[in-house]
Structure formats: C-alpha cells, structure tokens
C-alpha cells in the first residue's frame, strides 16, 4: 500500500532507494588490529595503519569477511567468492590515507531480497542490490573549540557494510519498515549492533517522485538521517519539496542534500557538478579477496533462524496472527522468551500475556526485556494457574502486577494472598443464594425480562467472593437459579 502525495496535478508516487552503512561487529578494524570498542578516549584506538603512517600496509581481518558473508546469507543474497577492494580517493581531514578502501564494481555480496511488514498486515519484498565492505573514516569534532576542529581516528578503519537497496521502497512507512527489518536481521545475525544513536548504523536515502506508471524521476540523496523517525520526516519533507518544484514547472537537480533535524528540512549540500570524482581503482596493496564456497556453506550452518522465517513459523506452529508474530520476533531475545512461555502451553494465551501485559509494563517502566523482573518460566507459571482454573484471568492481572513488583512466583503470591479461585460449586451456590435473597426486586425484574441485570448478579457474587469465584461456574449456577 504505497503512500501517494496528492498534488494539484494528481497523485505522485514516492520512489526510494536506501544505502545503509552498518558497522561490523568485530573486535578489530577491517585492515588493522586496533580495537573497535565504542566510547574510548579520542585517538586511543589507532594503529599506524589507521593513521596512514608511511609504509603501513592493510591486512584484511578475516572476521569482518565472515560477518559480511553471514549478512549476505541473512539477506538471501548472492555471495561472491571473488571480490576486489578498491580505493575511493578524496581529501578530508578525517581520512588520513587520502582514500577509503572500499569495494566498487566487484562487491562481496550481490543481489538479494528481504520481506518487510507493512501496517495493515501486508508483506512486501524489497530487493537488495549489493553489500560491500569498506573502511569507516575518522570523526571530525567541531564543538570543542571556538575556532578549531578536532579529529578522532578511533573510528578510522573500522569495518562497515554498505547495504544498497533497489528503488523498491514507496514512501516513508515502507522506508521505516525496511530500515527496521534490516536492523532486526543484523541484530539476529550478530553482525551489527544496529545502534543508530551511536552511529553504528547510518542511512542515506535516495528520494524521487513520479506520476504512477512513469519512468523514475531525478533523485536526490539525503544524508545525515540518523534515526528511523528522521528517515520518515526527511522523506516526507523531500518528496513534498520535489512535488512542489515539479508542479510549478521546475525540474529536480540531482544533488546531495543534508537533513537538518532541528529545522525539519533538507538543504543542498553539493550539486552533481560539485560531486566528487572518486577515481576508484583496485587497491594495489591488496590481492583480490577469494575464498572457497565451502566456507560459505560452513557459515550457513551457523546462521540462526532469521526474523522472517521465525515469523512464518510462529504463525504456522502457534496459530498466531501476523501482527502478534511480527511483534514477538522483533528481537531475538523476545522471540526466545515467548517460546519458553509458550512451550507446552496455550500459545495464543502466552502471546497475549507477553505482548499485552509483559511488554506493556516494560514499556511503561522504560525497561528492556533482559531487565524484566518476571522471567519466562515465572510468566509460564502464571499462565498455568489460569489454564488449570486455579485463578481467573482477571485475578491473574493482579497477581502479575504483584510479580512485577516483588519478583515472586505466581503460585506463591496466590497462596500467600489466598487468591485461589473458588470452583467448589457448593460454596458458590451458597453465595448465590445469599445474593438472590438480598435482592428480591432485581430478581423479579430479571425474571420479567430485564436480561441486562444478569451482569449485576455476577458482580455481586464476585464482590462477595473477592473475585475468586470461577466465572464460568458462577454463570452456570446463576442461570439455573434465576432461570
């Protein structure tokens, strides 16, 4: 369901392709042994290679290659057993070599595709054009001194995967869904932590507009979009800007634009004429990267179940809705938690409890699942008490709140507070007789056709039993006695 922009001349379709830069999870950099840990003191993780000292040569980190292959497999993509590192030449203070070692016409990963989940339960395939490995640049720091800029080379030489999509994305919602899905896949695979705030995942967004059915329009590349929300806002703004220009009879200049989150606008950064000529050529310091396809097979054996596979399995195996399955697979730890709860229990009931109660309370308390005060087996214990009619669903919510606060097991709380459901029909009957005796007017009204009063009687019985009476038994007996 593509979002259209309504213009004065009709509807416009937004066409988007994305380039995602994902920092590879590895202990060392792509071509040097320096550490990649986040948050170290500036310039404390810089080898001679990263600082481009004369005569220093790059040596490829095998771990980074393995991570790129894993990611390629996770994106259902072609793994190229031969690829070539090329130099991308440009001058910038945070690029000490004067070139970035990247991959150009022969990347390690070729075409693939992933499935994105759209609101309304729709699924859509987005094509992956390629993934290549490259070095990150250092970081220029402009806010430490009134007139000077500083350069931190800790990030210089860290491995990045650039994931390029086909222009298959139609609108901000799809872009957000694509970005989330890529991040989810990377996290499942353990190849990138996906933290956009720390800059370990960054996106460049190519946006153009066209009348449906027409060829692609001229695109603009938007940089500096550092959150999923920013991606949506930037696309909204940029597409509207382009439509306005085109409807006023103007034309779009192909250019690189910068998203300004404070003002909520995109600004021109450099035009096509000012675009860098990167003078790509194969890096003579490195041989072509070649490996056996058996290595790819080996890595394939170690892949975890991926989000989309898991989603479809949850739907088939547990009978969950697409929505519930999508929520549960969003994080690997969440999916694992759910499966522990659902094991040999009512899977749908388990899904409701995990999604509505557990995630609800964690969200409210701004906690993550690994900080949950209720473990998966504890939640399972609570569900067992509901399933075997020890407590009602309503009481269970109170017990759950108690579990969150105290960290105790459900059974212990039920025992301590005497919350055990009364299923003894004799006891329930006695209470019902009491209620009937106390409310002769209502009984008469009910018997003369005021059906709605049934709820009143249920309420009275529950009140007298402190909510512990089995609701099904109360309904049955009440119906008989009033009937």
């Amino acid at each position, binding site marked *: 369901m593509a979002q259209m922009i309504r213009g004065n001349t009709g509807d416009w379709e937004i066409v988007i392709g994305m380039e995602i830069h994902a920092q590879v999870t590895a202990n060392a950099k792509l071509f040097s042994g320096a550490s990649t840990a986040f948050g170290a003191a500036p310039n404390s993780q810089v080898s001679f290679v990263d600082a*481009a*000292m004369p005569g220093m*040569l790059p040596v490829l980190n095998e771990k980074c290659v393995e991570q790129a292959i894993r990611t390629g497999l996770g994106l259902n993509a072609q793994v190229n057993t031969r690829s070539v590192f090329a130099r991308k030449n440009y*001058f910038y203070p945070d690029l000490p*070599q*004067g*070139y970035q070692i990247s991959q150009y016409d022969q990347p390690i990963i070729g075409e693939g595709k992933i499935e994105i989940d759209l609101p309304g339960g729709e699924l859509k395939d987005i094509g992956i054009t390629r993934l290549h490995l490259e070095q990150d640049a250092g970081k220029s720091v402009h806010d430490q001194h009134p007139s000077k800029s500083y350069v931190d080379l800790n990030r210089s030489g860290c491995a990045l995967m650039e994931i390029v999509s086909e222009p298959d994305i139609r609108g901000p919602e799809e872009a957000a869904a694509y970005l989330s899905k890529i991040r989810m896949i990377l996290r499942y695979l353990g190849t990138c932590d996906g933290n956009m705030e720390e800059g370990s995942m960054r996106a460049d967004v190519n946006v153009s507009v066209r009348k449906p059915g027409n060829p692609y329009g001229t695109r603009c590349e938007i940089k500096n979009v550092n959150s999923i929300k920013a991606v949506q806002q930037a696309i909204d703004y940029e597409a509207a800007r382009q439509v306005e220009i085109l409807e006023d009879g103007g034309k779009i200049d192909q250019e690189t634009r910068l998203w300004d989150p404070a003002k909520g606008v995109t600004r021109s950064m450099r035009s096509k004429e000012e675009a860098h000529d990167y*003078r790509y*050529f194969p890096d*003579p310091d490195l041989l072509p990267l070649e490996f056996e396809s058996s290595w790819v097979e080996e890595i394939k054996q170690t892949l975890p179940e991926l989000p989309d596979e898991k989603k479809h399995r949850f739907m088939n195996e547990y009978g969950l809705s697409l929505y519930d399955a999508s929520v549960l697979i969003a994080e690997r730890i969440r999916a694992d938690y759910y499966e522990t709860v659902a094991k040999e229990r009512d899977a749908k009931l388990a899904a409701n409890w995990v999604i509505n109660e557990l995630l609800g309370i964690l969200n409210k308390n701004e906690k993550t699942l690994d900080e949950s005060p209720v473990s998966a087996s504890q939640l399972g214990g609570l569900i067992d008490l509901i399933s075997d009619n020890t407590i009602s669903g309503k009481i269970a919510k109170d017990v759950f709140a108690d579990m969150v606060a105290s960290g105790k097991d459900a059974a212990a709380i039920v025992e301590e507070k005497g919350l055990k459901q009364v299923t003894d029909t004799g006891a329930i009957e006695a209470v019902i007789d009491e209620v009937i005796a106390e409310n002769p007017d209502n009984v008469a009204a009910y018997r003369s056709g005021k059906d709605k009063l049934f709820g009143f009687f249920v309420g009275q019985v529950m009140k007298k039993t402190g909510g512990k009476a089995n609701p099904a038994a109360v309904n049955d007996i009440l119906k008989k006695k009033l009937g």
Partner: protein
Amino acid sequence: MLQVMAGHDPKDSTSANKPVPDYSAALNGSLKGKKIGVPKEYNVEGMPAEITAIWKQGKAWLKDAGAEIIEVSLPHTHYALATYYIIAPAEASSNLARYDGVRYGFRANEPDLKDMYELTRAQGFGNEVKRRIMIGTYALSAGYYDAYYIKAQKVRRLIADDFKKAFETCDALLTPTAPSAAFAIGENEDDPVKMYLNDVFTVPASLAGLPGMSVPAGLDSQGLPLGLQILGRPWDEETVFNVASLIEKQANFIYMPQSLTTKAA
C-alpha cells in the same frame, strides 16, 4: 642481503608465503643445459653500437659458460613504457595523498586548512613527483579511466603473457639495461618523455612481476657505465643470480665514478 630480507611478511598482504631458497648455493658458475633467451624486440632502432656490442659480449660470456642462446619474441614490448606510465603514476597519485602535512613530514605554515594542504604539497613535492600525481589523477578520472587505466591493465596482462610464453622455451633472458648510457643529473629535466624512454627495457619485467637484475658490464667511449639485464621466471631469483654472477666475473667491472676516485686519491 636478499637472503635476510626475503620471505613472508604477514603485515604485507601482497607478500607470498613461500620457502626462501639458499641463494648463494645457486651460484655454481655453470649454465650447462640452460637456455638463455634474447628478445628480438629489445633491439630498438637508434640504439648506440656500443650497447649492441656489450649485449653481444654478454651472450658470448654465457655461451662460454655452457648456455644455449636462443632468440625469443616479446611482441608487446613496444607498449610497456606507455602502460607503465599509466599504472605507476595512477598508484602514486593515490599513495602520495597521505602526505598532507598533518601527521608527519613537511608542512607549509598556513592558517587555512585548504591552503595548508595545497601549499604543503606544492612546496614539498618535486617536479617529477607532481608530474606523476597529475598524470595519475588524470588517468583515473571519470571518463578517462576506461581508456587509460583499464586499457593499461589489459596490456599489462598481455606483456606478462609474452614473458610466460618466452619462459616456456628459455630459463632466463639477457637484455641491455637501457637503450642509452646514463644521462647527467638534470640533463633531461625539461623532456620527461626522453627520460622515461630510458626505462624501456626495465619496466616490462616490473609490469610482469618478474625478478630482474642489472649488472655493470662495460664502459662507453665517454667512460659511462653500460649494464646488462637478466630477467628470470617468477620466483626464480636463483637462476638470475647465477647468470649475473657469471657476467660480473667475466666483465670484471672495476670502474668507479670519477668523483669517488678523486676523493679517494
């Protein structure tokens, strides 16, 4: 010295992990059963007679040591110089980018960053270096890359194939080192092409990745040294050394530059 330097360097991705032979053991003084190739394309037009003569002398010395001299053909020799002067400057233009005056080396004192970069490089590099950066940057530019760099890479492959084919029939090649005697310092500075032409016999082996060695073999009429070049198969430094040692012995080259002999006296 090579014996110590040779071998695998794990910090150089282009270095091969191969056992290092005992080079001095290869100097057995005999070329019995060996075939030495003489590439006919190295007989360039306008080459001084003295160079042709020293080449002929070299062949005679090797024949005396038991080698069979055969003529071979390296048909793409003619393109080697142009190829080299595309590829080498292309690499150099990128390799030298790191000399920006920031972390080490010469720095022009300018308050503005861009001025500092530009003047550091303008003042710090010599003319030949700047020339190569310009040529290399041009050859890699959008629109010229296919015509120059890619084409040069293809020709480089053809040149390497020439050698591969030649080494099917011979064990090493004997050529003059240069088509003229050494020129004086500063002599060809305003005519770089003439200067580059002097490399015509040495660059093909560099492009093909072969071991080569130049041995001083005699003097021209002006007392300038003339050299002979020996080229071997990939990884076959042993044959190159063995051939070179024979030439060194026969040539008995004892001359020293005048500046050195004067000082010594």
